[in-house]
């Protein structure tokens, strides 16, 4: 087993009473107290997350854009300065090796953010695919902390810590800017994984505690609470956002799992996975659907979806939705079912209805 990695904020988590858990090779806060309270705080005010387990890879070079267009599913060369995009790392088979956020930081510089559990796969794939391009890939994960502030109060909180930056009012969704916090360079991105407005702050490890403390100090009066991975998971599930290893895997093509639009088939030439994506999944391949049920018994990852006596799919993520108050699930289900589906919840069949994703959508700001 590889050594467990530790975030630079672990002492802060311990002091705040966090229950730590191993996730993606890192010790991370699962919850600090009540995960339902943490979830509600993000929906209503703001939550503070340590996401330092996420992998940050810096891509630079005259051909960095062309390299990313070849290596990844999206057309990243077309990003404007300061723009972000959700994209995929595909295998030649078209299966998904990871889902990524890519930010354009300069004319010849991009930041690729990958899931902790896929870091080695992404580093290896990019190192392999960069051959022949005038570009370099540097894994900065071990030197970089990532702190997220998510929720309707997040802009007011980030504004109050005294960043030297352009006004956050001018920072649109899926945009990033360079700022300075107490003399340290910080990247401030308006991105997240909760379905709320929010910010993700990339900061050198040695400045992480000071930034965290500043956010706690100014945020607490505005309702900011520490939030762990348990709340992050129910928040992203309500927002219909896929999680690698649950909805996404090497066994699924993008079109099956609702991320087909992230593949730039029309606007760029060849790239790894293109032929398989163009060929498409088999006609009877399962597709990702949203399921809702009544009551309080939730289907969970791995539970069977049944149509009468036939097993027609499997739940990829499921929970009792804290915001909506009823069970929700995402599931991979073969097409052509009768419409009377159920989830087998440990021997009890819970009737479910297919719904469009997401389950929850925030009110847009006026």
């Amino acid at each position: 087993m590889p050594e467990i990695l530790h975030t630079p904020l672990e002492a802060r988590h311990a002091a705040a009473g966090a229950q730590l858990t191993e996730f993606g090779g890192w010790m991370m806060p699962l919850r600090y107290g009540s995960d339902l309270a943490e979830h509600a705080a993000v929906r209503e005010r703001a939550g503070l997350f340590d996401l330092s387990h996420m992998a940050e890879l810096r891509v630079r070079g005259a051909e960095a854009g062309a390299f990313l267009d070849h290596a990844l599913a999206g057309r990243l060369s077309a990003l404007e300065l300061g723009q972000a995009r959700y994209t995929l790392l595909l295998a030649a088979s078209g299966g998904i090796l990871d889902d990524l956020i890519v930010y354009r930081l300069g004319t010849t510089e991009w930041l690729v953010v990958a899931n902790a559990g896929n870091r080695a796969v992404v580093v290896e794939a990019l190192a392999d695919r960069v051959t022949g391009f005038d570009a370099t890939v540097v894994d900065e994960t071990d030197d970089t902390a990532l702190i997220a502030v998510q929720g309707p109060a997040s802009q007011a909180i980030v504004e109050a810590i005294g960043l030297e930056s352009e006004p956050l009012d001018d920072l649109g969704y899926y945009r990033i800017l360079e700022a300075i916090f107490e003399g340290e360079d910080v990247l401030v991105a308006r991105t997240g994984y909760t379905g709320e407005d929010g910010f993700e702050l990339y900061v050198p490890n040695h400045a992480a505690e000071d930034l965290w403390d500043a956010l706690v100090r100014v945020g607490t009066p505005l309702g900011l609470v520490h939030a762990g991975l348990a709340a992050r998971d129910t928040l992203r599930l309500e927002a219909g956002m896929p999680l690698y290893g649950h909805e996404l895997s090497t066994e699924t093509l993008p079109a099956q799992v609702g991320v087909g639009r992230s593949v730039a088939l029309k606007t760029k030439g060849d790239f790894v996975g293109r032929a398989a994506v163009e060929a498409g999944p088999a006609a009877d391949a399962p597709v990702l659907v949203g399921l809702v049920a009544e009551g309080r018994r939730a289907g969970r990852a791995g539970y069977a979806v049944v149509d009468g006596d036939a097993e027609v799919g499997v739940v990829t993520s499921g929970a009792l939705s804290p915001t909506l108050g009823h069970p929700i699930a995402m599931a991979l289900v073969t097409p052509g079912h009768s419409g009377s589906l159920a989830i087998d919840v440990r021997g009890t069949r819970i009737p479910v209805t297919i719904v469009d994703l997401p389950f929850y959508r925030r009110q847009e700001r006026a």
Partner: protein
Amino acid sequence: MTTQYTADHEWVRAEGDVHVIGITEHAQQQLGDVVYVDLPEAGRTFAAGEAIGEIESTKSVGELFAPADGEVVEANDSVSDDPTLVNQDAEGTGWLVKVRFTSEPELLDAAAYQATLG
């Protein structure tokens, strides 16, 4: 009124000729916020080791295992109505069932249970 424990993170307390069972403080902490409990009806008989109830949190499902053979006398309806009682007071008002044992449960004292938690 001594509280004893099982290796399945349940507590057992004798009250007259019945035993009260719940999950331990440690178990509720590990589960996180409890959002649903499914408890057996009074009169149900069970065998040692049988799962007789479920405790669901946002993140996981815990089962209530019978520590011995017996019969359910009463389920805690308050917990069914408000599962957060398990978080608030796991070893008190958050009790789950009262049972009458017909075989002898294998129980740990508090020190032995604490030792299992490492």
